């Protein structure tokens, strides 16, 4: 508390002293010390690799060290809660996948809400695909829907956990197609993909690279355009189901960034997404670079959050 007071006083005095000469001095010498990026998942996962790639590019454009700080637990909510508590000075940022913002607050009592963040930019998006088990009779979504209409609740589909983006995307598809399947939740991508490989479940909604790397066949891609990694698979829209779904996220900060700091970060964001190395890392992870500016990003987060709140209401509380 004392140091905070001291820091604040010092900052106040410094800015008072400088305000006459150079307006927005603190924003202009930002950053003058290492920046910390909180990742709400353990090291080694997709989010972590994404954050490390982002940190590497940010370090170059900001001219300061950017340190990755993994805070796993609670489906990402522990780390995001920690981020919300940080001081909005631009020295603590977070690379955050969307589920922690748009799903989890509707699932559990998170100590944060969407108003507690400044949205800097969306960085990545990875379309989802619906994979089928080996030797599955289904070749496209229509065959699946026809079969499921005749045999309700016979087929099973897996997800990396209840309330994940994949789970909600699948539930949304089931509503649109008006069919019923049994949901088998797993903990994470790997166990669910294995269960599909072993034929213990019939379907698995996942990111395209998860499907592709394991040599699984998919019957529909949930993006606007066909996915480059699965060129022969038709999109859901092409097959007559108006739905897209992706795993996505971006750079956020605790709410209340100074304008100068925020615009500096948005600029850095732009150079991150144009970096070739960044694009390459994302491609290896099966994700695409997808930039949204602060306003678009925030609007998108709020929009999806509203849709998912309703979905979660019907899926979890309607039963």
């Amino acid at each position, binding site marked *: 508390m004392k140091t905070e007071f001291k820091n604040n006083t010092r900052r106040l005095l410094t800015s008072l002293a400088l305000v006459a000469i150079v307006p927005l001095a603190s924003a202009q010498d930002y950053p003058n010390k290492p920046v910390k990026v909180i990742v709400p998942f*353990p*090291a*080694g*996962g*997709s989010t*972590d*690799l994404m954050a*490390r790639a982002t940190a*590497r590019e940010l370090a170059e454009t900001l001219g300061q060290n950017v340190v990755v*700080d*993994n*805070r*796993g*637990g*609670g*489906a990402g*909510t*522990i780390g995001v*809660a920690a981020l919300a508590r940080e001081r909005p000075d631009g020295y603590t940022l977070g690379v955050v996948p969307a589920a922690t913002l748009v799903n989890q607050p509707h*699932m*559990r*009592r*998170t*100590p944060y809400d969407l108003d507690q963040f400044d949205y800097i930019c969306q960085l990545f998006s990875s379309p989802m695909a619906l994979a089928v088990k080996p030797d599955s009779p289904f070749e496209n979504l229509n065959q699946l829907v026809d079969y499921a209409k005749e045999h309700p*609740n016979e087929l*099973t589909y897996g997800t990396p*956990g*209840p*309330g994940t983006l994949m789970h909600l995307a699948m539930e949304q598809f089931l509503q649109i197609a008006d069919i019923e399947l*049994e*949901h*088998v*939740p*797993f*903990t994470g991508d*790997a*166990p669910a*993909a*294995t*269960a599909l*490989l*072993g*034929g*213990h*479940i019939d379907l698995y909604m996942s990111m395209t690279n998860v499907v592709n*790397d*394991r*040599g699984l066949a998919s019957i529909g891609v949930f993006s606007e355009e066909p996915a480059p990694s699965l060129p022969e698979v038709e999109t859901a829209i092409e097959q007559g189901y108006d739905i897209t779904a992706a795993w996505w996220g971006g750079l956020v900060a605790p709410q209340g960034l100074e304008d100068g700091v925020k615009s500096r970060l948005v600029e850095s964001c732009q150079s991150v997404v144009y970096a070739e190395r960044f694009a390459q*890392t994302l491609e*290896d*992870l099966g994700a695409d670079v997808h930039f949204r500016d602060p306003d678009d990003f925030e609007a998108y987060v709020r929009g999806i959050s509203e849709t998912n709140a309703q979905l979660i209401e019907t899926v*979890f509380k309607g039963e």
Partner: protein
Amino acid sequence: MDSILAGLHLLLAPEALLSLFVATVVGIIVGALPGLGSVLAITMALPLTFVLGQGASITLLLGLYCGSVYGGSISAILLNTPGTPQAAATVLDGYPMARSGRADLALGWATTASAIGGIIATLILSIAAPLLARVGLKFGPIEYFALGVFALTCIVSVSKEDMIKGLMAALTGLFVAVVGQDTVTGALRFDFNSFELSAGIGLVPFLVGLFALSEVFWRASKLYSVESVKAGKSRFTFPGFGELRNRWSVLLKSSLIGTWVGCLPGVGATSASMVSYAEAKRSSPRRANFGNGEPDGLIASEASNNAVTAGAMVPTLSLGVPGDPITAVMLGALALQGITPGPRLFIEQGDLINFIFMALLVANALLFVCGALMTPLFSRILKVPEPILLCAIVVLVAIGTYSINASTFDLLIMFCAGVAGFLLRYGGFPLAPIVIGFVLGPMIEQSLRQGLIITRGDFLAFLHYPIALAFFILTLLFLLLPIMRSWLGCIFGQRQRKLDKQEHSHDL
């Protein structure tokens, strides 16, 4: 043949060998420090892989993995505290050995068993990896449930003195594991409106508190009332060749169990060492001695947990499915190196696979060298004055626990688990069943509920799955055998006692 040579070429590059050696040494140290585990070791090394080449990065990770899993046994033996969760079963016989002045021999056995276990597993894998991966796929939720129930039977073997207290401890472990988000419905359980508790109770803070802190409290409470610990000879003694031949079957069997469990995604080394400990306790001719410093128990745990390191590479490399959190981090590191694990890796990059297996062999062989060189150093820990040692343990475990998630809540959990562990020791409850329940509970619960979704709520349908049925029968046999043995003992009492005596004298 060509691809074997190409793999060897990759391995013999100076930077690859150097990073393997350094990583093994660092891994042993990190593993031996309670609370700091394999995941931390590999995570810390992750940024280094950005700089190192492909070969050196892979040997770095493998060295850290093997070294840290082995290193956990050192503190298990010397301090009654598993350095890593994987060594939880090593404590059961390792510490009593050290306590009775045979620390040097216990360390020797742990090293031998670890290295041989790892080598056997690697040899099996280099031949059968793709095949094992296919068989591993046959394990769905129902089979996992059956395996989990089977693994629970080891509670019986670790609750030697008081079965009721052992079962109570196991239930406590199962209950603690329930805290947090329900994995099927997403509902929150026993979170008492605390956001931190809604994420569940972490394995490391819980384990470290339960074993390490409670040990510190326990020893501190005895400090001025009981004679201080008899410090063992601070040397390292390899078991004699005859000894090794006598215990060969335990070693081989435990390595096979470890290899197999390692191949099953998501089960992990902690469960493997418990299963093979239980199996050794069931089948060893020296079973009566288990828990009092019987090398067989130590061998069973150490051979199998190091065999898992190789086994876990099977689903990781051939299916792209990590077997435990450690291989999950490795999978990420491999992705950074431009290697995409999956069914095609074995076909497309045979050189690399051979390289990885050879690196694993060398890493395990290095355990002999590093172990022999380094354990005498660790043995000196026993000579440090106890008050200083206890303080040092508290500081180390606190740093280790905090380093994982930078969470003060984890420290609180650790402290509470420590106090609880102390009270339970005081009440004569065994601690191992708590860990067994805590580790296996979530797997059993989730696979049971997944299985019930798949069979539409019909539990009897589980018996139609042959692998699951086999495990259920084995479970029943495990539970009934001791009872039947005691019945038989009543009938053939005279003969049995005579046999036991013979076995005992043979053992001596």
